[in-house]
């Protein structure tokens, strides 16, 4: 055993280390490794199942959201158009100018 003269000995003590190693020595390493690997496989399966379920739910939710968004946007456009034309036929509004009546036109001229 190497006695250190200072509290801050930088070197490991091989004698103490070996004694502690023997005192803490685990047994059946192969059995332990097999046990850990078996446990590692179980959560992985569960995890994959969970992720797959989440993925399916996520895809379904995304589709529903897309559908809902399409409906909302479509309804919003229609409502905006109707409010702009005041209930008239949108095509007539877009078609534009109606010709003025001739009598009205001349009457306004002769009044001057």
């Amino acid at each position, binding site marked *: *055993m190497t006695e250190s003269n200072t509290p801050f000995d930088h070197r*490991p003590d091989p004698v103490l280390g070996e004694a502690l190693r023997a005192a803490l020595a685990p047994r059946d390493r192969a059995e332990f490794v097999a046990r850990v690997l078996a*446990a590692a496989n179980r959560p992985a399966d569960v995890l994959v199942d969970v992720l797959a379920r989440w993925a399916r739910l996520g895809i379904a939710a995304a589709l529903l959201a897309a559908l809902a968004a399409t409906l909302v946007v479509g309804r919003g456009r229609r409502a905006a158009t109707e409010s702009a034309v005041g209930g008239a036929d949108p095509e007539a509004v877009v078609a534009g100018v109606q010709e003025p009546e001739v009598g009205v036109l001349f009457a306004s001229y002769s009044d001057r």
Partner: protein
Amino acid sequence: MLAGLALAGDRGAFGELVGRYADQARRVARAVLQDPDDADDAAQDAFLSALVKLGQYDASRPFGPWLMRIVANAATDRRRRREVRRVEILDEGLVAGGQRPDVAAEREVLSERLRQALAELPERRRMAVVLFDVEGYSHAEIAGILGMPEGTVRSEVFHARRRLRTLLADWRDEG
């Protein structure tokens, strides 16, 4: 390398990592928990936790300290949860330095005494001395593993050694 393969889903690589670090992880866990079954449970928890967290591991750094930090935390958590009771089972004959028919028996008695002495140390001190003198980690690495300043690690190792060396010296004198 192995960690990267394990992260990619290579179970053989993970198995190799477990085999390589199994003894070390179990010793460190036992330094905290004393009971070998509890220690194995904690070590297993640590390996499974490490598998889940492999994506967080920085491959440019040594794998051992990263894993040992997880082991230390797993062991501490388990000790807290289970409120491990320290049962003092002292064989009167062994304490009195009774019959020691062969070397193997002597070593077992010494081991038992060391385990008892370790159990009397504060938890961080136990882990520090085991990580330093048994597992060969540097003070800086242990500081990272245990989350304490390097100077504190040196102090903990020193105090633990002083206690354990006294015990070993007494044992030699008795022999």
